């Protein structure tokens, strides 16, 4: 019997190619999205779940009490690792790991003629116990011995192959960091998998830290280093709650009272999702984003199924004769229903095949959009197949059962007379409800997309209080010899007429890297109860970035602090209304950097637009400068950039040149929002597309149903326009109802979403207007074609009964 059904189903599909194509395409796209989203979620939730006893592993971070609530750092102060080991002998493992910023790595030593230089970002210092806690394979050497001594290092296979051609040649070779510190390679690590937030490449021994720039802070309980992490593995007998309590007393015991920030334990499983802490990958995937895309996935599949129901009930009218005959031949309702469900199953299987092809082909696009390395191989095949089969069954039942019940209910006599009408096929009301559901979802996605895109556009275009276009940020080496060349470099740069200005500074006006401190104002005995963001820069910095002053002027050029510039917010915090009154007042930083305020700069955003503007304190401090900001004339970018690179390389031949455009860098603040925006654009587009397929199907159905009505109307004198109006009117009402349902929901969710940003677009009526106008326009175009076709049929044909 089943063979007979399959045969009929295939012939039916072949006969009604249009219908089959609409169904397979709609369902296929829906299932493809479901599949992709499933893969993305599986991938994102697989991060670092492969380590032994991963549930017992915690990262120690630091909590800070800020003015707008608590904020967190993934790092600790350096002595914490050793102290934890001493104070909590019951901890199974304790491991410190420190991530160092950009590092110039050269092979061999200075005498080596074939010396190669590389600019590396994933450079770490780790204790051997780190590798006892985390499962990363070693190809050569053992962590216990390889990372025991200062000056030893392990590198990954990829790095080893990059440096030496074959990883087997790497053992025993030497590497030099920043032309200073020499490391001997004692181990080779297998490349870390893609689903880890430890993108290890070069891992030096923790003991080597005493030879680096942070050596002075290794016993400092005050400074928290965001990239100095400590991981612990709790014994099974210890609950995280108990440990967190212990950490409070631990912090109080060790940290000076005036700098008491409590250490907190964050589960390893939370590291990939919690943007409050962040991770070494600099990429988190929030739980709410997972919820959002899960919902989108479900939405898209529902839309596709609704489509299917609409199309197949519409199609059922054309099959009424077959149903009648089969009933007269003795088919039971159950058998007929089963036949139609198995047809749905066949279509769904085709759709699933299409979906797999679509999903595989769109993986590269998804990988670019989300900056991930997802591949079919990242998910176990059995899991994928189970999901796919489950989805096929679910979709078949969801979209097949209703049409099957309707069709099998047909009365054989009416069915044979071919007088089936809309009422007999389950009533239009259900189909109308389904279309409303479909369009409500589409509206929801459109509005969400418009808001997210609007907000990300705002991030790009909003004024941050300084010029960010045409400014090149070029890091300069921070050793003392290189610093003596800064003046020379500036003069060389300025010889080029296309370069309008150069300024050296600690960082850029808006930067991820922030340095905050409290200070004493105007000879006060106590420090301020807030901390200001410190920015160290030459006075030219204000000119290069075109920053406005509301009072007086920048400090004079000098190598060390000779005057301070503060921003308006800082004055507000101090309770000073008139900026001119602040000029000449002393600011005392740590009791050693004392100087008077020389000017007040207009407020600018020193971090992303998510955050409100905070107090900023600026001064000159040449020893900290590590960045050149170069202002290039518009239109001369290419030439100027070549010139800058050449000049830089001539000035610092031992280093590797890097650059970044400031606007690109600032864009990087909004990576997650940009990704969300592209995801929404993609999926909302698909939702609209599938909905339109459904609309087309529905209108085709109505057209078939109303052929006679249209014929009579035309005989009575209706014009083509009248007929089109007839079809569009109902649709317009449906879309408006859908909008009325979707708009408040969308407003609620997007309003909440926008609250995350201190600087945000208003949730204006125009967004909603665009959504409704857009969907109406698209719907009219979709329907227009079919209704014109229905309207121009010669009534003589449509009214013929035989």
């Amino acid at each position, binding site marked *: 019997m089943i063979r*007979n059904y399959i045969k009929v189903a295939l012939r039916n599909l072949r006969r009604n190619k249009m219908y089959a194509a609409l169904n397979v395409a709609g369902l296929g796209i829906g299932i493809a999205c479901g599949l992709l989203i499933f893969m993305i979620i599986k991938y994102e939730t697989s991060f670092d779940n492969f380590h032994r006893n991963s549930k017992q592993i915690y990262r120690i971070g630091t909590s800070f009490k800020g003015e707008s609530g608590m904020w967190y750092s993934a790092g600790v102060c350096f002595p914490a690792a050793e102290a934890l080991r001493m104070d909590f002998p019951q901890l199974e493992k304790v491991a410190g790991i420190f991530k160092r910023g950009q590092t110039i790595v050269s092979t061999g030593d200075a005498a080596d003629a074939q010396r190669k230089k590389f600019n590396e970002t994933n450079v770490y210092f780790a204790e051997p116990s780190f590798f006892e806690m985390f499962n990363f394979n070693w190809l050569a050497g053992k962590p216990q011995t390889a990372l025991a001594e200062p000056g030893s290092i392990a590198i990954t296979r990829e790095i080893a192959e990059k440096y030496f051609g074959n990883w087997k040649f790497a053992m025993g070779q030497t590497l030099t960091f920043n032309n200073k510190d020499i490391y001997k390679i004692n181990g080779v690590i297998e490349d870390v998998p893609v689903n880890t937030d430890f993108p290890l490449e070069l891992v030096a021994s923790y003991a080597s830290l005493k030879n680096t720039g942070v050596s002075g802070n290794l016993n400092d309980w005050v400074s928290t280093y965001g990239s100095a992490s400590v991981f612990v593995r709790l014994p099974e007998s210890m609950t995280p709650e108990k440990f967190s309590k212990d950490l409070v007393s631990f912090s109080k015991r060790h940290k000076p009272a005036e700098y008491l920030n409590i250490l907190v334990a964050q589960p390893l499983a939370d590291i990939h999702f919690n943007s409050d802490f962040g991770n070494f990958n600099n990429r988190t995937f929030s739980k709410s984003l997972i919820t959002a895309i899960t919902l989108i996935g479900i939405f898209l599949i529902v839309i596709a199924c609704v489509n299917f129901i609409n199309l197949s009930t519409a199609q059922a009218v054309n099959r009424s004769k077959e149903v009648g005959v089969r009933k007269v031949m003795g088919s039971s309702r159950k058998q007929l229903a089963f036949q139609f469900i198995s047809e749905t199953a066949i279509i769904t299987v085709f759709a699933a095949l299409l979906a797999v092809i679509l999903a595989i082909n769109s993986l590269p696009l998804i990988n670019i959009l989300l900056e991930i390395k997802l591949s079919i191989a990242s998910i176990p095949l059995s899991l994928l197949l189970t999901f796919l089969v489950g989805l096929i069954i679910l979709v078949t039942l969801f979209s097949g059962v209703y049409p099957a019940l309707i069709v099998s209910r047909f009365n054989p006599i009416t069915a044979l007379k071919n007088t089936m009408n809309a009422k007999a096929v389950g009533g239009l009301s259900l189909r109308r409800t389904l279309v409303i559901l479909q369009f409500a979802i589409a509206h929801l996605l459109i509005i969400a997309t418009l808001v997210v895109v609007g907000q990300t556009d705002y991030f790009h275009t909003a004024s941050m209080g300084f010029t960010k276009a045409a400014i090149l940020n070029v890091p300069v080496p921070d050793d003392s010899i290189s610093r003596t060349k800064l003046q020379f470099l500036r003069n060389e740069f300025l010889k080029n007429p296309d370069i309008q200005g150069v300024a050296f500074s600690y960082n850029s006006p808006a930067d991820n890297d922030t340095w905050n401190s409290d200070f004493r104002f105007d000879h006060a005995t106590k420090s301020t109860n807030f901390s200001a963001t410190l920015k160290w820069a030459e006075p030219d910095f204000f000119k290069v970035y075109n920053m406005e002053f509301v009072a007086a002027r920048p400090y004079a050029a000098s190598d060390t602090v000779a005057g301070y510039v503060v921003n308006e917010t800082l004055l507000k915090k101090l309770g000073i209304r008139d900026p001119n009154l602040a000029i000449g007042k002393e600011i005392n930083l740590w009791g050693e950097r004392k100087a008077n305020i020389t000017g007040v700069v207009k407020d600018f955003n020193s971090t992303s637009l998510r955050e409100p503007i905070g107090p900023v304190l600026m001064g000159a401090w040449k020893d900290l400068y590590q960045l050149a900001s170069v202002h290039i004339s518009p239109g001369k970018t290419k030439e100027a950039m070549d010139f800058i690179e050449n000049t830089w390389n001539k000035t610092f031949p031992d280093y590797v040149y890097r650059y970044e455009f400031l606007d690109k860098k600032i864009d990087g603040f909004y990576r997650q929002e940009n990704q969300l925006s592209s995801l929404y654009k993609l999926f909302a587009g698909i939702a609209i597309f599938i909905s339109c397929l459904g609309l087309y199907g529905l209108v085709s159905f109505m057209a078939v149903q109303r052929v006679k009505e249209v014929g009579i109307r035309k005989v009575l004198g209706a014009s083509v326009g009248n007929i089109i109006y007839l079809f569009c009117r109902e649709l317009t009402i449906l879309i408006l109802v859908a909008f009325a349902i979707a708009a408040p929901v969308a407003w609620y969710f997007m309003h909440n979403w926008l609250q995350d940003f201190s600087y945000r677009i208003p949730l204006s009526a125009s967004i909603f207007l665009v959504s409704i106008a857009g969907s109406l326009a698209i719907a009219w175009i979709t329907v227009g074609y079919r209704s014109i076709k229905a309207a121009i049929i010669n009534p003589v044909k449509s009214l013929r009964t035989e």
Partner: protein
Amino acid sequence: MLLELKNIFKWVTVGGTRTFILKDVNLKVNEGDFISVMGPSGSGKSSLLNVIGMLDDFDEGEYHFLHESVHKMKEKQRSALYKQYIGFVFQAYHLIDELTVYENIETPLIYQDIKSSERKAMVADMLDRFQIVGKKDLFPTQLSGGQQQLVGIARALIGKPRLILADEPTGNLNSKQGEEIMELFKQLNKEGVTIIQVTHSEKNAEYGSRIIHLLDGRVEKDGL
């Protein structure tokens, strides 16, 4: 006796007034009968046939088929009954367009849960008997009207029914094709199959052994 209708009424209510489709119809059909039902359009011929075929309900009266009370049955039992004993032939043939000649004839057997090997043999017999073996893989639209009706009759006969109900079986055919079909019915009747046909044509009605005239849902004349 094959079947008996007692005081059958069937009506529709439109705007509060009852319009009778069948009005107090009494009918006895014996095995081996060949009955022609005649009457003007709207006289209830097709409705009577549908009631006999158990495809349609009636509002009042009794219907006994092989001593079973059809009016007391549920839809499922009725369908099991007609599946076993009744074959239908239609004016518009009503073949399934998506199925070949072979498959169309096979369909009733599928619903009677007959094994595939047995089905093959039965369909082959039927194709043989109607001399349409060469057309078994064609689709209905590739056949002439007469041939399609032949397939329709073959399909009606495949389940070895005791009764064949034919609703204007020659209505869409030219006279020569019609004649052939009627000869076929006569032949079948001789072999023992009971036939009830609805027809407009006096000439075709003559093939029957008994003619029933309907007018406005009433049996006006029953006999030759």
